[in-house]
């Protein structure tokens, strides 16, 4: 099987679906001739032509509106938002319009739109480029939020997202684009949206995470194993909707859990997971469910981001806290 980076896996998925479905259109700022600022669409315009893969004027709101309108004409748009920090510019199109299309049309219209966008921190970008804003979308009913942590998952989840008949925000963590390679089959495959994945099995404590933090959790789990703590690491893969079945099954086994997110603490995905665990499995818990998150500041200026971002040491500390409760 081929070893690929996450960015290559993403390009793979786009290529497969552009070939497979003539209604798929890929567009956004610099995605055409330039192949995207991260090269996610490298070579796609040459291969499929400017009708299918094209540059847009620089206007996120325009991109969102264009996607919504093309969806109404039976297309399956894949509009890229160049950096997810720019999402505020297109917030009405995403949360106000696409997410409500099915509902407000009384289930007569839908918006099969997939919005891929780089997000997350740790790569020294300027302001408003690196942030974890998944919570803004996860709070909106009517739209799914998918966040892969490996090249394999990225390809399968992106194909499933594009084929989904409802809107999906597909967030690609910038730090994972090229930081490692993983096995990615050349063929077409999908991973069901809304299903978490157990990335490491363990019996003592459940670490629930997503995105780049999955790798911090796995690193923490390796360290914890040296102290005879076997951590189970769950990768949510879809943060809206969340797969509580997998989480509860694990917590019933381990009786301890922590939730890790790169986003700030206030009103995040992790808070939601903690709430659901205590509602569904409180009698299985031997300790409170703790969170590892970033502090409640605006995403830091790049010089301070290494200290600001949670890491495997923070995770180990919280695991020890729940184990010694």
């Amino acid at each position: 099987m081929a070893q690929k980076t996450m960015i290559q896996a993403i390009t793979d998925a786009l290529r497969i679906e552009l070939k497979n479905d003539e209604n798929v259109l890929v567009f956004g700022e610099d995605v055409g001739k330039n192949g995207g600022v991260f090269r996610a669409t490298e070579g796609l315009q040459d291969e499929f032509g400017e009708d299918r893969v094209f540059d847009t004027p620089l206007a996120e709101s325009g991109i969102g509106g264009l996607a919504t309108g093309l969806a109404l004409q039976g297309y399956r748009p894949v509009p890229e938002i160049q950096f997810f920090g720019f999402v505020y510019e297109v917030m009405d199109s995403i949360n106000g319009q696409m997410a409500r299309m099915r509902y407000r049309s009384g289930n007569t219209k839908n918006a099969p739109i997939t919005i891929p966008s780089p997000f997350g921190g740790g790569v020294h970008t300027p302001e408003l480029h690196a942030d974890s804003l998944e919570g803004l979308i996860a709070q909106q009913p009517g739209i799914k939020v998918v966040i892969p942590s490996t090249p394999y998952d990225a390809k399968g989840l992106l194909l499933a997202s594009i084929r989904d008949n409802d809107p999906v925000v597909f967030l690609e963590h910038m730090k994972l684009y090229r930081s490692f390679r993983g096995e990615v089959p050349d063929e077409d495959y999908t991973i069901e949206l809304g299903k978490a994945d157990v990335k490491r099995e363990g019996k003592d404590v459940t670490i629930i995470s997503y995105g780049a933090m999955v790798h911090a959790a796995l690193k923490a789990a390796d360290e914890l194993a040296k102290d005879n703590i076997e951590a189970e690491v769950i990768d949510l893969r879809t943060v809206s909707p969340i797969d509580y079945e997998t989480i509860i099954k694990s917590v019933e086994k381990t009786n301890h859990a922590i939730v890790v997110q790169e986003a700030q603490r206030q009103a995040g995905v992790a808070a939601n997971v903690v709430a659901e665990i205590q509602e569904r499995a409180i009698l299985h818990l031997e300790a409170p469910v703790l969170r590892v998150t970033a502090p409640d500041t605006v995403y830091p200026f790049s010089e301070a981001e290494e200290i600001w971002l949670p890491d495997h040491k923070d995770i180990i500390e919280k695991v020890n806290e729940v184990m010694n409760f």
Partner: protein
Amino acid sequence: MKHVLENIESQFEMFQVLNEKGEIVNKDAMPDLSDEQLKELMTRMVYTRVLDQRSIALNRQGRLGFYAPTAGQEASQLGSHYALDKEDYILPGYRDVPQLIWHGLPLYQAFLFSRGHFHGNQMPEGVNALSPQIIIGAQYVQAAGVALGLKKRGKKNVAITYTGDGGTSQGDFYEGMNFAAAYKANAIFIVQNNGFAISVPRDKQTAAKTLAQKAVAAGIEGIQVDGMDVLAVYAATKHARERAINGEGPTLIETLTYRYGPHTMAGDDPTRYRTSDLDSEWEKKDPLVRFRTFLENKNLWSEEEENKVIEKAKAEIKDAIKQADKYPKQKVTDLISNMFETLPTNLEEQMEEYKEKESK
């Protein structure tokens, strides 16, 4: 039925004072500048070119962070800035660090901005400006507000804002001009049209023949200027400034220019979307070359004089980098302190947590 688009570009003929050979082609429009002022304009352009070259080198050595190259755009940036008053308010885009420096932002702070340190965004007392805007177009709507504020306070000053050709596609671009126009606010809107929104050429961004004509729908004056001609940019901005403070409303100025370098130093490769022929076509129009010729013909400039500016720039850049290196590193507790006037309880708790972490 009348077709208004026919020949619309003839209404927006490029305004030029100095041609590529450094000759005055529009005597009537020659701005009233003393020899010293003309030399000062040249000094600033040479200094800024050196700063750009050094910044690119420092970025490659890992000693600077985010950097958007400026070479090619000096006349647009510094000619427009030179028409301003110290009390005028600048709302820059991410490439407009030179205007901030000439408005009073110390060089070491510009370097800290590049490195991602909040002190780079702390404008010193008396420097009327916002730090460079990252969201394309956001500065345009804010400029309308600053301009209206200046007008309400009865100030004879303007708000000036900058974006690129790409920025003219944003809704905020239209909203900013429309608001400022509706309130006849003291605003100047500059578009540095360097031909590319990162990789997307100007003709793929809009069907409009000029960007200056976008002023018409907002009901304001639009001027297209040779953005490689520092005297034309200066004269156009001076004119717009006088109109603004006399209550005649905002002006949109499109400067035709070019960035020689990449979009930013973070991996952009212009050879993917521009030809070297286009590069050399624009290099022939270079703002420094033509202004140097003009000044030399007037016996106002020499190689010796230019070398002095270059050496001064290099020395000051070296000192500023040292000063930036010495500045205390930013901490998470600093960021927490900068969130609210009074810390809410969640941040109070986190402040304690991070104080402890930072003391280790």
